C-alpha cells in the first residue's frame, strides 16, 4: 500500500491520451448552459426518491447541493467531519461574493465577469465552465437574499456592493467581514430544513476514508464515525465530493485545522484524475507566524492594501523599531518596482515580492525561519537568520484621512490584528507575510462536474474547474454556491437518468469488502507502528518542505530536491509514527495521522506537477520562466492545457493526461503590471 515499489522513477511519468470534456455543448458560449440543461435527461419527480446521492462535506458547495437535491426529491446522505454541518470552513471567508448584477450601472455584465475570471486565471481555465459560472452568479444573490442572508444594504434598502481585488467594477456583495459565514448559514439552514423533513440523512463527525467503485462507477463510500471509530459503508447512485481544498498540505495555511485532502485523494487513488495540483494561491496579507508553536495562519482582507504602504528596511538585518527607521532608510519596494500599480499589484506579485525581500535578509518582526530548519524533524536547511514579515504601514493614511476614517474603514481588521499580535496597528506598522490560502487545482471534472469516475462528482474547491491558475478575490464563494445550488443539481439528473441502477449493492460486494479491509488495515498499521514521532511533527516537516520548494517560487532543482525527500519522509513516517489509543474510540491523533498519509502522497504529485509545468502562470511561478524584468512568463505554446494526472501506485509515476484549452472568446495576453 505504501511501499515504494515503483519500477520507474517518479519523474519519468508517461503521457497518456488527452482527456476531453464531452459535455459542454458547441455553439455560442452564452447559450451553452441552456443547451446543456435542455439536452440533459431528467428523472421523473416521482422516481427521484428512489435515487440516493451521497454528498461529502457541508460547506457552501456541499450544503447547497445537499439541500437542493433533497428539495428536488432525491434521497441525500450527507457527511461532515465537524460536529455540525454549520462549521465547514467556508464560514471563514471574509471579503464577499461576486455577481454580475450590474446594480451599479458601471458597465458590468455576465461577459465581463467571464472575461475577468478567465484573464485573472491566467488562461488556464475552461471557457465554457467560467461563462456558466458568470451566468449563474446572478441567481445566487437572489437565492441568498430569499434565504435571509443579511447582505450589507444602503439606506434605500437596496443591496450595497464594493469593488474587490483590483477589478474595475463594483460587483462584490458582502455582509461586513463575514460574508462566508452568512452564506454558509443560509445553506446550512436550507439543509437543516431538509434534515428535519427526513430528506437528508446527516452524518456529522463522520469522515469519508475511501470511495467504493463498482463496475467502473462510484457507488458508495467507506466512512468512519469519529466518535465510536466504527467503519461503515454507505451506498448510493452517485457520490458528490464537496470536501474543499488541500492547502493543509503546507501545514501552515489559512485553512481550518481539520480541513484535509483525504476524500479527494482516496477518490484519485480509485481512478479520478487530479488536475493542476500545483496551482495554489498564496495570499499576501496574512499575519506572520510568531514561532514554531504556530498552528495556523490568519488572513486579513487584502482591502488593507488600498491604504496601507508596504515597506522593509533598506539595510539587511536592521533590527531597529520601525519608528526609529527614517524615511530615507525605508524601501517601499512595491511602489519602487511597480510604480503604476504600487501596493495594489495582484496577489501573486505582492506575495513573491515579500518573499524576495525577506530572502535578502530584510524581513522584519520576530517570526520566521530564524531558528527553523536544519534540526531533527526538518527537511529544510537552516533558515540562516531569515525573518519573515514586511511592514504594512498606515501612518500616511492616518495622517491623510484621520484616525477616525481609518477606524471606520478597517476597524475590525485592526482589532483582529491587535488581538493576535498584541500590537496597536494605529501606532506601530502592521506586519504581514504571505500564506497559503486556496487551491485552484483539484479533481478533474467535465462540464457536468463529473470526474473521470462515472457517478463521482466534485464541486466547490474540491474540483479544478473555474479558476485556472489563479482565483480572483470574492470568486470562491461564488463558485461554491454556483456548483451547489445550480450546476450540480441540474447536471446530476442526466447521469441518474441514464444510469438507473437496478442491482442493489451492499456491504457484501467484493469492492466494498476490499475498500473496508484496506481502510481498516491502514488504521491498524498506523496504531501498530508505535514509534517516537507525533503526527504533527511529520505534518510540520512535509509542510515546511512544500513551503520551501513548492511555495511562492519554484525551481527545477528545488522541486527535484523535494521529490527526492518526500519518499524518505514517507518511509520514516511508517517507521516512526506514534499514534496513541485505539481505533475504536474518539481518537484525534489517529484522524490526523491518517490524513497525513494522504498529504505525503499528494505533496509528491504537487511537486511533480510543478516540475513538469516549466512555465510561470498565476499562482505557479517557476524561476526559470521569467521575463527580463523578473515577471512571470507564461508559455502558451507549450502549456496551454490542464494537467490531469492518473494515479498509478504510491511512489510510482502517474500518467499525465492533457486537456487542451481552447480560447474562442478571450484571447490570451501576457499580464503586465510594471
Amino acid at each position, binding site marked *: 500500500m505504501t511501499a515504494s515499489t515503483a519500477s520507474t522513477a517518479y519523474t519519468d511519468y508517461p503521457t497518456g491520451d488527452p482527456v476531453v470534456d464531452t459535455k459542454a455543448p458547441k455553439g455560442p458560449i452564452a447559450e451553452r448552459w441552456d443547451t446543456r*440543461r435542455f439536452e440533459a435527461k*431528467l428523472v421523473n*419527480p416521482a422516481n*427521484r426518491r428512489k435515487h440516493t446521492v451521497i454528498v461529502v462535506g457541508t460547506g457552501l458547495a456541499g450544503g447547497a447541493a445537499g439541500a437542493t437535491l*433533497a*428539495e*428536488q*426529491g432525491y434521497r441525500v446522505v450527507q457527511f461532515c467531519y465537524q460536529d455540525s454541518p454549520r462549521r465547514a470552513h467556508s464560514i471563514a471567508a471574509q471579503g464577499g461574493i461576486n455577481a454580475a448584477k450590474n446594480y451599479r450601472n458601471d458597465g458590468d455584465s455576465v461577459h465581463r465577469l467571464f472575461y475577468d475570471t478567465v484573464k485573472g486565471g491566467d488562461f488556464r481555465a475552461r471557457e465554457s465552465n467560467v461563462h456558466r459560472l458568470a451566468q449563474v452568479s446572478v441567481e445566487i444573490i437572489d437565492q441568498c437574499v430569499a434565504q435571509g442572508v443579511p447582505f450589507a444594504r444602503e439606506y434605500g434598502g437596496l443591496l450595497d456592493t464594493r469593488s474587490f481585488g483590483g477589478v474595475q467594477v463594483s460587483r462584490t456583495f458582502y455582509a461586513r467581514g463575514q460574508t462566508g459565514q452568512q452564506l454558509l448559514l443560509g445553506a446550512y439552514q436550507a439543509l437543516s*430544513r*431538509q434534515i*428535519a*423533513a*427526513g*430528506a437528508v440523512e446527516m452524518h456529522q463527525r463522520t469522515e469519508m476514508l475511501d470511495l467504493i467503485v463498482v463496475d467502473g462507477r462510484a457507488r458508495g463510500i467507506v466512512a468512519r464515525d469519529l466518535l465510536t471509530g466504527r467503519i461503515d459503508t454507505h451506498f448510493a447512485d452517485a457520490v458528490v465530493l464537496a470536501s474543499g481544498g488541500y492547502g493543509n498540505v503546507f501545514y501552515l495555511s489559512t485553512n481550518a485545522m481539520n480541513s484535509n485532502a483525504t476524500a479527494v485523494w482516496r477518490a484519485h487513488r480509485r481512478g479520478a484524475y487530479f488536475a493542476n495540483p500545483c496551482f495554489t494561491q498564496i495570499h499576501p496579507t496574512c499575519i506572520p507566524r510568531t514561532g514554531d508553536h504556530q498552528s495556523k495562519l490568519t488572513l486579513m482582507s487584502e482591502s488593507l492594501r488600498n491604504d496601507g504602504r508596504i515597506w522593509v528596511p533598506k539595510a539587511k538585518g536592521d533590527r531597529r523599531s520601525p519608528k526609529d527607521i527614517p524615511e530615507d532608510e525605508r524601501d517601499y519596494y512595491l511602489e519602487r518596482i511597480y510604480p503604476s500599480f504600487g501596493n495594489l499589484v495582484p496577489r501573486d506579485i505582492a506575495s513573491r515580492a515579500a518573499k524576495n525581500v525577506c530572502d535578502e535578509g530584510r524581513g522584519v518582526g520576530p517570526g520566521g525561519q530564524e531558528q527553523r530548519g536544519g534540526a531533527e524533524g526538518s527537511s529544510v536547511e537552516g533558515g540562516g537568520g531569515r525573518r519573515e514579515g514586511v511592514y504594512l504601514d498606515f501612518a500616511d493614511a492616518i495622517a491623510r484621512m484621520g484616525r477616525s476614517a481609518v477606524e471606520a474603514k478597517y*476597524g*475590525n481588521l*485592526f*482589532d483582529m490584528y*491587535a*488581538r493576535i499580535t*498584541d500590537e*496597536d496597528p494605529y501606532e506601530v506598522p502592521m506586519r504581514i507575510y504571505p500564506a497559503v490560502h486556496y487551491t485552484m487545482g483539484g479533481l478533474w471534472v467535465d462540464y457536468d462536474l463529473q470526474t473521470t469516475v462515472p457517478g463521482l462528482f466534485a464541486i466547490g474547491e474540491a474540483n479544478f474547474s473555474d479558476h485556472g491558475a489563479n482565483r480572483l478575490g470574492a470568486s470562491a464563494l461564488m463558485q461554491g454556491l454556483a456548483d451547489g445550488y445550480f450546476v450540480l443539481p441540474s447536471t446530476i*439528473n442526466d447521469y441518474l437518468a441514464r444510469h438507473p441502477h437496478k442491482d442493489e449493492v451492499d456491504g457484501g460486494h467484493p469492492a466494498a469488502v476490499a475498500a473496508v479491509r484496506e481502510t481498516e488495515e491502514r488504521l491498524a498499521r498506523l496504531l501498530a507502528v508505535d514509534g517516537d514521532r507525533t503526527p504533527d511533527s511529520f505534518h510540520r516537516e512535509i509542510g515546511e518542505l512544500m513551503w520551501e520548494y513548492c511555495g511562492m517560487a519554484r525551481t527545477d532543482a528545488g522541486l527535484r530536491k523535494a521529490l527526492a525527500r518526500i519518499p524518505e519522509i514517507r518511509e520514516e513516517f511508517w517507521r516512526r509514527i506514534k499514534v496513541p489509543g485505539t481505533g475504536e474510540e474518539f481518537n484525534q491523533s489517529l484522524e490526523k495521522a491518517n490524513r497525513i498519509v494522504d498529504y505525503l502522497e499528494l505533496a509528491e504529485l504537487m511537486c511533480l506537477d510543478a516540475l513538469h509545468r516549466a512555465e510561470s502562470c498565476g499562482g505557479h511561478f517557476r524561476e526559470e520562466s521569467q521575463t527580463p524584468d523578473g515577471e512571470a512568463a507564461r508559455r502558451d505554446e507549450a502549456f496551454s492545457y490542464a494537467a490531469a494526472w492518473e494515479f498509478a501506485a504510491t511512489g510510482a509515476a502517474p500518467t499525465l493526461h492533457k486537456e487542451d484549452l481552447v480560447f474562442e472568446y478571450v484571447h490570451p495576453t501576457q499580464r503586465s503590471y510594471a
Partner: protein
Amino acid sequence: MEGCVLTVGLMAALDTRTDRRPSFAGLLWGSTVGKKTAMAVSGIVMLLYLVVHMLGNLKIFFGAGTFDGYAAWLRTIGEPFLHHEWFLWIARVVLVAAVVTHAVAAYQLSRRDIAARPVKYARPSPGRHPRWRRFAPPLSRRRRASYATRTMRWGGIILGLFIVWHILDLTTLTVNPHAAPGHPYANVVATFSTWYGDVIYIVAMLALGLHVRHGFWSAAQTLGAGSAARDRALKTTAHALALLLTAGFISVPVAVMTGLVS
C-alpha cells in the same frame, strides 16, 4: 423541470410544519417562555397590590382611628353593587391565583433549570466582568448576574413562608399576640412589639426589595418591553419600586419599635 422541482420542494417544506396547535393558555403554560410570561403577569399583579398595600399601611401614622376606619372601609368597597366584603374576597381570590401561578411556575421552572445544569464548574465563575482586551471591539456593556438575580429563588421561598405567617398573624389572627378582631391597629402594634415579629417582618421586606429589584426588570424583559434604549428607565423604576416598597413597609415596625406608633 423547474415546476417539478418547486412542487417537490414545497411538499418537503410542508412536511416540516405541524399545524396542530394547543390553545393560547396551553401554548404559554407548555413552554418555558410562556411560563415565564405567567410569572411576569402574576408578579405584576402582586406588585400592584403591594404598592396599594404599602400606601394603606402608612395610614397607621395617622392614629388608630384612621387606620381601623381604613380597614373597615376596605370591606365596603363596591357597595351597594357588591355585597359587604365581596370586593375583598374577589381581591383575595385574584391574589391567591397570582401567588399560586407564580409559585407553581417558579417551582417547575427551577426544577427544570437545576436538571439542565447538574454539574458545577470546578472553579466557580469569578463573578467579575471579564477583562476587556486591549483594543477590544466596541461590544455592548457586559452584565454579570447581580446579588438580587442570584437570590431570586431563596427570596421567593422566604416570601412564601412570610405570607403564610403574615396571614396567620394579621388576617386570621391565629398567632397574633393581641388577636382582637376589628382592631387591626392594636394587632399590628402587638406583633411589632415582639422581637421575633420585627425580625421576621424586616427580613422578609428586605427579601421583597431584592425580589422586586430583579423581578420587575425581569418581568419587563419577559413581556418583551425591554430594549437597549429603555433599559436605564426600567432599571431605575425597578430600583425605585424596590426601595419605596421596602422602606414603606419597614417604616411601620420601625415606628412601633421607636415608640412613634403605639
